[in-house]
């Protein structure tokens, strides 16, 4: 119990003094995760719409695979990305290992199946509602996809936030490909792991509380911007 109070006190102290290191790693956390979210959503949402609209041979297989990949172990993703980006790997010449870019790549791989699966569920429901009408109107495949994406944007926001939640709290993959290097690739989650390892539980808890606060703040901000609960039911 004493550790928890000490953690709260540490969090309070860090926030009030606007600790320079804290600001730096918090901003890096946001930078990495939001970049991964934007890129991941840009891949996952059209993919989900495509899977909802198109009928092709391996469609069921792809959907089942996406659902299975929602539980992709981040450590393994980190390992694979590490191997690909390492000096001797196929993308070694890019020199990306132990940079924030490598962390973004790993997070994109982790969240794309999650966002695509959740988005596909709601797009599929909307498609069954719209199917006859859009077929009758003779619209093209890309128009169908755009219509579905636009008309279920609220549900897609929720899917994206699920991706954000998974990425912001993720430590296994970014620890491996980022390396937790101070002033270069240290983010909130890897800092917590480090402080815990050092035995500085107050600091670790303080960072943890700030991480949770950050996740809540971003969710609220996006909901507020999207006015999710303010009007309509979609």
């Amino acid at each position: 119990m004493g550790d928890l109070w000490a953690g709260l006190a540490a969090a309070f102290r860090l926030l009030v003094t606007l600790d320079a290191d804290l600001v730096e790693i918090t901003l890096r956390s946001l930078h990495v995760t939001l970049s991964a979210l934007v890129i991941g959503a840009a891949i996952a949402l059209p993919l989900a719409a495509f899977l909802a609209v198109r009928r092709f041979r391996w469609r069921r297989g792809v959907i089942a695979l996406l659902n299975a990949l929602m539980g992709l172990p981040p450590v393994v993703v980190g390992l694979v990305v590490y191997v690909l980006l390492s000096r001797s790997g196929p993308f070694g010449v890019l020199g990306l290992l132990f940079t924030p870019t490598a962390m973004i790549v790993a997070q994109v791989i982790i969240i794309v199946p999650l966002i695509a699966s959740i988005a596909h569920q709601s797009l599929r429901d909307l498609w069954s509602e719209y199917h006859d009408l859009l077929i009758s109107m003779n619209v093209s495949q890309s128009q169908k996809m755009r219509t579905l994406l636009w008309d279920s944007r609220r549900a897609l926001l929720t899917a994206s936030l699920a991706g954000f939640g998974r990425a912001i709290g993720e430590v296994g993959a970014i620890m491996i490909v980022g390396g937790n290097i101070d002033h270069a690739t240290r983010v909130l989650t890897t800092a917590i792991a480090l402080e815990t390892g050092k035995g500085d539980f107050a600091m670790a808890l303080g960072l943890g509380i700030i991480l949770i606060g950050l996740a809540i703040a971003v969710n609220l901000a996006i909901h507020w911007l999207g006015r999710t609960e303010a009007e309509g039911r979609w």
Partner: protein
Amino acid sequence: MVGLLPLRVRGATSVRRGKVLVGPVDLDLSGAGTTVVMGPNGSGKTSLLRMLHGAARLSDGQINWSCDAREARARQAFVFQRPVMLRRTVLENLVYPLCARGETRNRAVACARDWAARVGLAELLDRAAPNLSGGEQQKLALARAMIIAPDLLFLDEPTAALDGRATREVEAVLQQARAQGTQIIVSTHDLGQARRLADEVVFLLHGKVHEHTAARVFFDTAQTPQARAFLRGEIVE
């Protein structure tokens, strides 16, 4: 521009999961204004309309329009029994089919306002379409179908869930469209509506065309006993 009709249907059949929904159907439609498809529930009215429109797969037989099939498809519109509302405002629902065809936004909006006024929805342009009442939704669906100025309009029991006043408004739009030369194929099991609208009647039973004659002939001297029984208001099975 070549007309859509005459339409020649030979042996057309629609099968789903091993069950014959409608057919085999032989039908010639030459363009006599409004064709009313009648028959009891489950006789295949909806399936026939969907098959002609190209929304249901043709399992066997042929449907030949007078022009190219793709072009024919683009010049048709369909109003469903249960209107499908896009999750958008009334205005956006009306604009959608025009913009999907590459019409400019400004012209589409002007056209949408015009059609909203014609069906009495001018006050509701900014309302979310799924929140409209059943009658308002059906009128919106009709306006959204008519807005592309189709040569041929299909309606599947458009007034089955509407009260008298909404039915009259829908029928007024249909009469007006007919006067402007739009071909209309409407299914109904409402005898009164059939008498008001029909130029010719297709009587359907068990997925097959039992009679196809001019409306006057059908209502006065129906040929088959089933049609006569249906007209007397008996339950035909």
